[in-house]
């Protein structure tokens, strides 16, 4: 390798083979090959795991807007450590950002977007970030970090009103993005997406009350079956009229417990 060539050292043969048997002195014994390219230098040589994590986010489109819900817990492994971290953020009057997964990366993304929104405000030309623009920007951001093999370990959900139509899209940590009428991140994919998709496909578009009721049912189901779920959650409803946040608490039903003794 070029980095190990030392012109002042005795040079026995021109084949630099690390597997040859070293008889006698060799400067190869104590050399370290520094990583040559920038990609090599930035590569992660150990797995990076998410530390403080948010659980699932559920979102779907109804007649007239989009509804999202996420609980307010940041889990530290299995410990329910930070119980006041809302994960749905308002970007402007018609764009909402929801985040799941590693929450420190989520904060970084949120701060970057807030900086962008402030820049736009400063220009004072009346332009506002639309959901589609934010969705595209997030895709580029996540994919760029993925190519450097240093991903943001979060899922990003972008929702809002685009051209008077409801918009809902998701980007994951690999930079893979899609738009759909129903988005779930995390374990909600397993626990809720199947039956909710059946309900939404087989019904005409729900109105706002029905959508809220259904979302409460989804969150209750996640609270039953997700170990990292929490009872307090936030619901966000985006319509042409604007953005509305609600803080709610799950009302679980435990009435089956007394009848189920001696169950392992």
């Amino acid at each position, binding site marked *: 390798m070029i980095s190990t060539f030392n012109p002042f050292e005795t040079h026995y043969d021109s084949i630099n083979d690390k597997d040859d048997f070293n008889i006698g002195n060799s400067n190869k014994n104590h050399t370290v090959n520094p990583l040559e390219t920038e990609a090599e230098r930035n590569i992660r040589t150990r797995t990076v795991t998410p530390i403080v994590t948010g659980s699932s986010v559920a979102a779907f489109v109804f007649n007239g807007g989009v509804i999202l819900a996420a609980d307010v817990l940041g889990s530290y*492994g299995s410990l*329910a450590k930070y119980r006041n971290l809302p994960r749905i953020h308002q970007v402007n009057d018609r764009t909402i950002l929801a985040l799941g997964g590693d929450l420190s990366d989520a904060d970084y993304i949120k701060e970057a977007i807030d900086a962008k929104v402030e820049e736009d405000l400063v220009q004072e030309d009346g332009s506002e970030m639309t959901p589609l623009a934010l969705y595209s920007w997030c895709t580029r951001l996540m994919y760029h970090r993925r190519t450097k093999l240093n991903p943001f370990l979060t899922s990003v959900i972008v929702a809002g009103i685009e051209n008077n139509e409801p918009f809902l899209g998701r980007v994951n940590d690999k930079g893979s993005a899609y738009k759909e009428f129903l988005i779930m991140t995390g374990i909600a994919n397993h626990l809720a997406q199947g039956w909710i998709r059946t309900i939404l496909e087989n019904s005409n578009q729900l109105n706002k009350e029905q959508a809220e009721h259904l979302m409460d049912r989804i969150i209750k189901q996640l609270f039953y079956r997700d*170990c990292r779920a929490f009872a307090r959650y936030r619901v966000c409803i985006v319509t042409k009229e604007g953005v509305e946040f609600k803080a709610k608490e799950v009302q679980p039903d435990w009435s089956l417990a007394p009848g189920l003794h001696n169950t*392992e």
Partner: protein
Amino acid sequence: MDVLNPKTYDAEEDMLSERTNYSAMDKLILPMEFQQAPVSTGTTIVAVEFDGGVVIGADTRTSAGSFVMNRFTDKLTQLTDRIYCLRSGGAADTQAIAEIVTYQLDFLAAEMNEPPLVRIAANCVRRLIYQYRDDFVAGLIVAGWDKKLGGQVYSCPLGGLLCRQPISLGGSGSTYIWGYLDNNYRPNMTKQECYDFVLKAVTLAITRDGSSGGCARLAIIDKDGVERIDVLGNDLPKVYDL
């Protein structure tokens, strides 16, 4: 597993057990939330002794990784009329131990013509865990009443130790309530104080531990019998939750 003829070394079996572990491939292919994790009663179990009996309590969640397999689990397993065990660790391992020990104690009661002692039950559990200590992941608390020594709590943790204690905590949720124990436990509490203590302890652990949750199942064991109490999730005592 053969109780009467325990396992001896078998070279072929030993080599076979190094066969491909397919679940290890899951780590490479599947994202984190979808991977199969062993089913464990990642749990909170508490047992307290009082003069004349014991109060035992546990949560009701069995989890596999992040998924709640059973939200109404009964971790208070009966070994005899007056002896219960609380299970934590691998769900399959602890169920197997409880069933074998129940059989052994039933046989012993027939032989001795009297109910077995709590210490004997705990010893049966301990012997099993110790014998298979490299294979089992099981930490049990054996608690009950007998007429020789009254209410007793014995702890049988992972390696196969037997230790009598006036109060014992176990399971993953127990880490969050050692402080509560150290601050609030006093020896010689009454039955009602012990009940409140156990209920509060389980509630605090449920609030913080992701692997514990649901309702609290308690039992009070004394000479007159076993009183089982289920406190549903909505009725748990209120703790600071913000």
